[in-house]
């Protein structure tokens, strides 16, 4: 039998003890987060340093760095749940002890003054839940609170993010992504050939707008434009997240060709959010067995003749002194809406007619 007068002090000191423990869990979590932040910053810096060495082949290295970043980014599931459960039980007991001790002093009748007396309890409960939310967010970084400090691994493949927030050459990152064009030929019975245009990416960089034009001498055969954004769902079997892929193929559309020339030329413009001049790729496509492929490395340069600005998810061309066909006519369709459009016979059809949407999904091959 404990003396009743003292019991309430014991209960309150236990509640105080529990609160101290909760505070130390907070410190423990912050130490873990600090360590993780250091590691992630190091990897990000290494990644950025790599991009300055654009002449050599670093694709494999970059891929590994993004995977490494992903590994350090996620906190393992099991301790995560354990810590959260500990916090939950702790807060539950604290609130129980507080309300219990208040109730033990309660004497009827009920008066309005009671609500004022209960106000500190309400504030205490609110503060504990807020603290819980804060700790939960710190443990799992995919939330707006930490997004700015620790970018998610998906941002490492986003050209717009890299060029916008980190001062980095878009050209050198794209060089490592090794964008190339691949045209698959499917002969038809009536003598025509259906051509499927694929953009191949060695390293899956996304979050940019493109404008592609395919030409046979001076005849424009095909135009494609749109925004490229990937959504890789976690691996269905292992459940591992996929921050970046290799050997990715992005279907850009279909067109049909009457006779098959020996070589084709293509121009690809890349617009990103952090820049004002697009990057221009010039390809020379040669015919192979059942396909056209850019054999030699494309000529990549920043095109200073085009000036653009992105406003409300729409690309506004401020100046254009190039002679890229249909560029000015189509510039009103330059929306960043994560869709790829194409125009399969620009010469015969009316350019202002609605563009076709390419809904084929990206695939690895």
């Amino acid at each position, binding site marked *: 039998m404990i003396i009743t007068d003292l019991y309430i002090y014991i209960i309150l000191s236990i509640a105080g003890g529990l609160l101290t423990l909760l505070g130390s869990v907070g410190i423990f979590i912050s130490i873990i987060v600090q360590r993780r932040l250091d590691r992630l910053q190091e990897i990000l810096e290494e990644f950025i340093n790599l991009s300055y060495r654009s002449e*050599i*082949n*670093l*694709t*494999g*290295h970059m*891929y*590994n760095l993004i995977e490494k970043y992903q590994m350090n980014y996620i906190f393992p599931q099991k301790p995560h749940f354990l810590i959260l459960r500990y916090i939950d039980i702790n807060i539950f007991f604290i609130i129980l002890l507080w309300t219990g001790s208040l109730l033990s002093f309660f004497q009827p009748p009920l008066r309005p003054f009671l609500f004022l007396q209960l106000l500190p309890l309400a504030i205490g409960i609110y503060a504990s839940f807020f603290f819980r939310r804060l700790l939960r967010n710190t443990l799992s970084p995919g939330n707006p609170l930490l997004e700015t400090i620790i970018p998610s691994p998906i941002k490492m493949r986003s050209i717009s993010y890299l060029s916008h927030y980190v001062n980095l050459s878009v050209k050198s990152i794209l060089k490592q992504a*090794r964008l*190339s064009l691949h045209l698959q030929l499917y002969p038809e019975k009536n003598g025509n050939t259906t051509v499927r245009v694929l953009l191949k990416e*060695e390293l899956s960089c996304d979050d940019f707008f493109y404008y592609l034009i395919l030409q046979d001498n001076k005849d424009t055969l095909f135009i494609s434009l749109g925004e490229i954004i990937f959504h890789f769902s976690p691996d269905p079997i292992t459940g591992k997240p996929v921050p970046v892929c*290799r*050997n990715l193929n992005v279907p850009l559309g279909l067109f049909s060709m009457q006779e098959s020339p020996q070589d084709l030329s293509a121009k690809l413009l890349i617009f990103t959010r952090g820049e004002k001049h697009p990057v221009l790729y010039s390809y020379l496509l040669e015919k*192979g*067995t*059942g*396909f056209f*492929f850019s*054999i030699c*490395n494309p000529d990549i340069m920043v095109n200073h003749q085009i000036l653009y600005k992105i406003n409300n998810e729409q690309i506004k061309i401020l100046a254009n002194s190039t002679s890229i066909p249909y560029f000015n006519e189509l510039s009103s369709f330059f929306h960043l809406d994560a869709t790829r459009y194409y125009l399969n016979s620009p010469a015969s059809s009316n350019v202002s007619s609605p563009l076709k949407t390419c809904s084929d999904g990206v695939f690895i091959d």
Partner: protein
Amino acid sequence: MQQSTKQFLEDLKKHLVEPLCLSKDNTYVDLATNQRIEFDLLSVDENYLPPNDPLIQVLAIILQTMQEGPFEFTRLGVNELLKSYLRRVNTDNEQSCTLCYLECIYQLSLYGLLENYPYTNFFWDYLCKCFDTISKYLIEYSLVFACQVFLYKVSVMAKDAAQKNLHTSSIQHLLHNIEIWARAEGYYELADDAKNKRFNLETVWV
């Protein structure tokens, strides 16, 4: 090395016209290939010499040009070596012939990847271009088994090159080319092999 291009090429061709030693039925005992050895065999072996392989001489000459320069001679040497391969390869010897020639090229490429070899980039680019042409030739003449050996050896070289940060996109392209051709012709095993090699070219990183 003070000699003219003509002299150099004559020297190379002299060795390259000699017949290859492709047959394995020689009596010279190699401890690495013979699993079980009897004493009698060893005593008989004293009188035998290993078969004369003309490619060893060629390899020695090209390696010397790599050490002493100029690069032009190395390039000519590799070119002559690979041309003689294309002249010799046929459906009877495709596997063994491809293997012994590419073994030479592999050794040269290993030397070319050394830190102190100044023309690593040139040499690798040149090899890539040659490989591209060879792959097209092998496809044209439907030398499937040669293709198999070829892509195996080339992917080993490309893997080493990728570790040294050299570009391997042309190798990936030729692997893709072989894959498409093999799938169209019905050689599914070769196609899968090429695809697998292409996917794993740059993944291993030390």
